[in-house]
């Protein structure tokens, strides 16, 4: 049993309410809406919609996008007075560097060096560099639930002993992409967001960042603000954008969070709603609450009438507000609502109230049916006693990959013959086994994800559907991103495609997969350049429990223009390539048969890849444990990465074959997904052919393959056939 609590020991927030805790608390006590009419993007008069922008001045660096700058302000404030860096960073982001990239693309600037901050994952690495964090820096991109989902992942990282302190939060800045995207969906209220009002007519977009420093400790560390008691993540698996009409996914996320916290629903004194002020969201969330509580719903409010909807930041901002509700004994008002919609049946708080709140719940729901909820308790509550949990291994039940050579069998056959599987399949070939109706409005990345998911499930026997889906993508759906912006800029900002908008979000492919496989559990999309698949795997090992069925995916598309601008490795490749891999698995801490286990993820120490990057226990017996290393060397970091490999081999004294897998797969962010699938295939076959080892055939009997990534981060995945009685790493 474990009796360590997870405490919020630092809190940084910058939002339309101001910067820092005193300003935010003052605004919550004296609510004034941050939503106002502003022509941020020089649009036509009839397109000017109210927004909630950050108006307080904050430091920025030249060339760094606004999202990164906002995130850093919140991170620095959360870390104020700390000397030790956090062990890890987990943040939710949707558009990342888009505020800058869209301007560059609109101006037809084609210098790749201008786009180094484009990736949503670059916000986390930017923070890591500034707060000297050398551990994992993970980025969740599950649309509007990102910030809340990040907190649940950080919670599990701490509970499962992978970190003692985690800087967690969310950040998003206003940009044309989301402004016109939501405009095209007719989801913006021209009068400003009025959550829960009978006349509500949509959202107001906002921006901001909030960061929480979480620490695990048996008693509250000095300066603790509140504690995170539990979290729940679910997926509607119902529609790409609309919430389930009965709020089934929302209900499941809340129920899971409450169970995870070890409390009863009636123990909650305040609920910070997702409350976007769209007709559908507020109705669906209210239905879920009525189902959960019948007629005893605690005080609720949506604070989006003050802050606007800051997408990936929203969950973190609202968890911060919920923590302040608990620490300041304050129930924030549902600003913007004049005539509460009686049909919702919610006890909405219209004016701020001063009274003790021991436990608060914060809800966030997003596109792709992605839902998350977090339970926050006051510092003086007893620390919950919990069963000790550990990160899971993934026992493989089915496999699939897509490469320039085709599907799994074609790819593995060629790879085994030492033949490259580089290249780009046509969209039609990618989705040849999927019904046309299903893919008619999906472009490349979503088609890849669906094709991979379907094939992996078929390989697993086709019976069980996974409950949860973990998807890693370096760049998300690039075709939709490109097409959306092309239409927008090509029409002088008059027209954009709502279909491209909703399918452009990083988590759209995973949402499609969840709908196809009816996967109602956690639905996570992680992004971090060349290490995105590894992030998804690590998160899967943290969010699943014994015997959970899950699907792990990684996919990236080669876009003829954007890949060349965003991904320097892809741009330098002689043969343009893309693809991905999928693994159906059962989570377990004692696998039988082929399984994959994440064993390392950290920033390359001084880019030398030496001593501390991987568990000394694994290195000690490396020749006995591993028959081969598959190493990923991103072209953009080739010199440094090769030096890291050399250093690692010297240090570990590994004497077996080293396969430079990107030579075979081509250079794309999630080539590690393909390498992992090929490694499992090789393990199942029991040997690695001479053509790959460069010497003779290598037996994999009793030995695994270590799939490693090098470059700015060093990662390692243990792939092996576990036999009864043989100790797993």
């Amino acid at each position: 049993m474990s009796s360590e609590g997870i405490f919020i020991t630092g809190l940084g927030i910058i939002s339309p309410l101001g910067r820092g805790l005193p300003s935010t608390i003052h605004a919550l006590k004296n609510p004034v809406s941050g939503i106002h009419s502003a022509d941020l993007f020089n649009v036509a008069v009839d397109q000017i919609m109210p927004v909630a922008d950050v108006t307080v001045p904050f430091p920025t660096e030249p060339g760094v996008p606004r999202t990164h700058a906002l995130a850093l302000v919140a991170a620095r404030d959360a870390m104020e007075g700390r000397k030790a860096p956090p062990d890890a960073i987990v943040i939710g982001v949707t558009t990342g560097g888009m505020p800058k990239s869209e301007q560059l693309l609109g101006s037809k600037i084609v210098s790749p060096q201008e786009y180094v901050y484009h990736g949503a994952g670059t916000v986390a690495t930017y923070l890591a560099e500034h707060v000297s964090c050398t551990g994992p820096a993970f980025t969740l991109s599950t649309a509007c639930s990102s910030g809340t989902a990040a907190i649940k992942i950080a919670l599990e990282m701490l509970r499962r002993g992978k970190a003692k302190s985690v800087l967690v939060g969310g950040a998003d800045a206003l940009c044309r992409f989301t402004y016109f995207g939501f405009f095209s969906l007719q989801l913006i209220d021209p009068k400003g967001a009025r959550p829960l009002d009978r006349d509500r007519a949509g959202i107001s977009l906002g921006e901001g960042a909030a960061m929480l420093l979480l620490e695990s400790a048996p008693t509250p560390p000095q300066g603790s603000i509140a504690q995170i008691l539990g979290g729940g993540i679910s997926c509607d698996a119902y529609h790409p954008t609309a919430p389930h009409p009965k709020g089934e996914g929302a209900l499941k996320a809340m129920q899971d969070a409450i169970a995870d916290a070890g409390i009863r629903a009636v123990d909650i004194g305040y609920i910070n709603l997702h409350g976007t002020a769209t007709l559908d969201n507020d109705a669906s969330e209210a239905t879920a609450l009525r189902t959960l509580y019948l007629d005893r719903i605690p005080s609720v409010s949506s604070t989006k009438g003050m802050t606007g909807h800051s997408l990936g930041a929203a969950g973190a901002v609202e968890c911060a507000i919920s923590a302040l509700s608990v620490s300041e004994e304050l129930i924030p008002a549902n600003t913007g609502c004049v005539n509460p919609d009686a049909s919702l049946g919610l006890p909405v708080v219209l004016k701020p109230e001063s009274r003790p709140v021991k436990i608060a719940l914060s809800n966030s729901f997003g596109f792709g049916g992605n839902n998350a909820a977090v339970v926050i308790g006051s510092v003086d509550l007893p620390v919950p006693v919990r069963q000790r949990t550990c990160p899971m291994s993934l026992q493989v039940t089915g496999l699939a990959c897509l490469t320039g050579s085709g599907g799994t069998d074609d790819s593995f056959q060629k790879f085994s013959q030492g033949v490259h599987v580089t290249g780009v399949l046509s969209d039609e070939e990618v989705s040849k086994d999927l019904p046309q109706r299903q893919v008619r409005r999906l472009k490349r990345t979503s088609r890849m994800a669906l094709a991979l998911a379907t094939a992996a499930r078929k390989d697993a026997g086709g019976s069980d559907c996974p409950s949860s889906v973990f998807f890693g993508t370096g760049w998300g759906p690039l075709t939709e991103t490109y097409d959306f912006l092309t239409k927008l800029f090509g029409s002088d900002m008059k027209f954009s495609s709502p279909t491209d908008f909703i399918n452009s979000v990083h988590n759209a492919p995973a949402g499609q997969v969840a709908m196809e496989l009816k996967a109602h559990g956690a639905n996570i999309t992680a992004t971090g350049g060349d290490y995105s698949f590894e992030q998804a795997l690590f998160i899967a090992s943290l969010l699943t429990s014994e015997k959970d069925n899950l699907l792990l995916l990684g996919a990236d598309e080669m876009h003829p223009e954007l890949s060349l601008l965003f991904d320097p490795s892809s741009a330098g490749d002689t043969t343009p390539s893309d693809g991905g891999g999928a693994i159906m698995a059962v989570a377990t801490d004692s696998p039988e048969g082929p399984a994959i286990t994440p064993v390392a993820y950290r920033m390359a120490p001084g880019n030398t890849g030496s001593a501390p990057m991987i568990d000394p226990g694994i290195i000690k017996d490396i020749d006995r444990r591993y028959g081969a290393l598959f190493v990923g060397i991103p072209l953009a970091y080739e010199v440094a990465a090769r030096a890291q490999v050399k250093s690692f081999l010297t240090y570990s004294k590994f004497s077996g074959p080293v396969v430079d897998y990107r030579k075979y797969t081509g250079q794309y962010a999630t080539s590690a997904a393909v390498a992992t699938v090929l490694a499992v295939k090789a393990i199942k076959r029991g040997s690695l052919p001479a053509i790959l080892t460069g010497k003779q055939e290598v037996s994999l009997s009793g030995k695994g393959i270590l799939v490693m990534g090098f470059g700015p981060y060093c990662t390692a995945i243990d792939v092996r056939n576990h036999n009864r009685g043989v100790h797993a790493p």
Partner: protein
Amino acid sequence: MEEVRPEKASIGKSSNGKASIGSSPIEKLIDELKKKVLDILNIQDVSLSDIDSNAPMVGNELGIDSIDILELVTVIEQDYGVRIDNKELGRKVFASFTSLAQYIADHRTS
């Protein structure tokens, strides 16, 4: 709010309500819209002659949903200069191909 006047569209409609290669301007517009919808929404398994001009556009064998309707809203504004900027109006206009054609015919600027 503008009212949709579907009765106008009945002129020249074939008796079974299905598309016929009509010669009246409204019939031509209906055919043009059907082609456009199949093309924009990438619906490949339905032929023009299978589409009933008076049947509901959403929730039938075409498989059109609310996202598709929003996509069509953009295209119709772009191609005909006709703006359908709220869901209530959208529900009336997109009741059928006939009502859509009629609304466009009554409001088009291009």
